[in-house]
């Protein structure tokens, strides 16, 4: 069977067949693996929320899926003024629903950060947790580093005055530099830092390393300046909302 491999017909049909085969294969693989990937993402988020609570740093992703409800008692969405949005205060007896927009867990902060320019109209999800009888408020934060998004979860203590733990992560910061924000030595610096100055909000500063620090300052990462600035910016922009909510709650 002699086929002229240089003919246009052969070339075009080869291209079509190749694209159909490869496209079909990729679609099948992507579809088949989607449920596992989604579960990984959900469990990772659960793990991050739990890891920033005091004493919970070593919870793994697999464990987090099943023990999430032991710690997280309520999920709620706030508006910019620190008020609870209607119908969004969910008890942990209500199953997590990643598709329900009333569920704080479903809020995609990255999407909101990119599409909703006005920070006053964004959603502010909050996870109210309980560790050994003490209440902690876990607030997600989202901002940008040097290359792409950086985000984190901040645990605030019951009084709303200080930080009890943090978890940071990033999409693609430079390994060894900006990527170090997800390391323990960076995250643990925030424990005990204050966000409240006589009931008014004061944000935590991420400084150049090497200078003496006060209660509102932590060391940044040398060589990871842009990422450090991103961490500082996302915390100062977002935590003010949660601070308002917790202070109002304690007053009433």
């Amino acid at each position, binding site marked *: 069977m002699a086929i002229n*491999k*240089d003919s246009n017909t*052969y*070339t075009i049909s*080869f*291209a079509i067949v*190749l*694209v159909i085969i*490869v496209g079909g*294969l*990729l679609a099948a*693989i*992507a579809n088949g*693996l989607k449920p*596992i*990937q989604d579960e*990984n993402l959900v469990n*990772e988020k659960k793990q991050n929320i739990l890891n920033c609570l005091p004493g919970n740093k070593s919870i793994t*992703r697999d464990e987090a899926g099943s023990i999430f409800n032991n710690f997280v008692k309520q999920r709620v969405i706030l508006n910019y003024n620190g008020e609870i949005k209607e119908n969004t205060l969910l008890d942990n007896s209500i199953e997590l629903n990643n598709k329900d927009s009333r569920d704080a867990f479903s809020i995609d902060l990255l999407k909101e950060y990119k599409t909703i320019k006005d920070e006053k109209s964004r959603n502010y999800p909050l996870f109210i947790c309980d560790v050994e009888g003490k209440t902690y408020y876990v607030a997600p934060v989202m901002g940008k580093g040097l*290359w792409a998004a950086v985000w984190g979860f901040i645990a605030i203590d019951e009084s709303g005055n200080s930080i009890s733990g943090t978890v940071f992560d990033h*999409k*693609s910061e*430079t*390994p*060894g*530099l900006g990527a170090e924000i997800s390391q323990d*030595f960076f995250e643990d610096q925030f424990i005990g830092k204050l966000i409240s100055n006589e009931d008014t909000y004061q944000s935590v500063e991420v400084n150049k390393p090497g200078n003496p620090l006060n209660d509102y300052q932590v060391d940044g990462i*040398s*060589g990871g300046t842009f990422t450090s600035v991103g961490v500082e910016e996302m915390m100062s922009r977002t935590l003010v909302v949660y601070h308002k909510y917790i202070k109002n709650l304690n007053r009433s």
Partner: protein
Amino acid sequence: MAETTEVLEEKKIKVKEREPLFSKKNKKLISDPLDENNPITIQVLGICSALAVTVQMKAAVVMSVAVLFVLILANVSISLIRNLIPNRIRIIVQLVVVAALVIVVDQVLKAYLFDVSKELSVFVGLIITNCIIMGRLEAFALGNKPWPSALDAIGNSLGYGMVLVIVSFFKELFGSGKLFGFEIFGNATEQTGLYAMGYMDNGLMLLPPSSLIIVAVYIWVQKIRNPSLIESN
């Protein structure tokens, strides 16, 4: 007479086909890229990832394994369809195959090795742009059978991985005083070990330009060891 020569010729062909799996020629396919035909230091391909993913040894090792996997599969699949590929669109066909493989790797990592996939993040996607892969497909797989192609892929990705690991060894050791994340020189923030004596990490080592210096020193050493590599003017 005519018959016997025919038989002889047939035998010759058969003998040729039965070339042992690890004949001298095939072994050379693996050993050559490690030294005198190293893709990075001699052919100067894949330099970009040698600069970008060598800050930590762990990332370098995982990247090398990913490249090994993609290159073997790409080389073998291109070699299998080498007689079908229309000459005019061969580069596009190679690109489609490599891109598809990289997406498969990325998806599988995300599903089953979630932590590794986070570690590598964008670099998995960037395997597509690694010149070594397209270079091997074009130069070797298009003209050779699957088995030699697979060996060629192993050799080249090992040669690539070797340079990556060596560069990242020096970068991580002198840039952050660690190897695979373990503190070798003591703790910099708590001022223990070497740091207590006033030693400081070299910040330049964490940045891409230092890779160029290390790769250059590597080439220098390699050419001292093997003078036949030195080009004469």
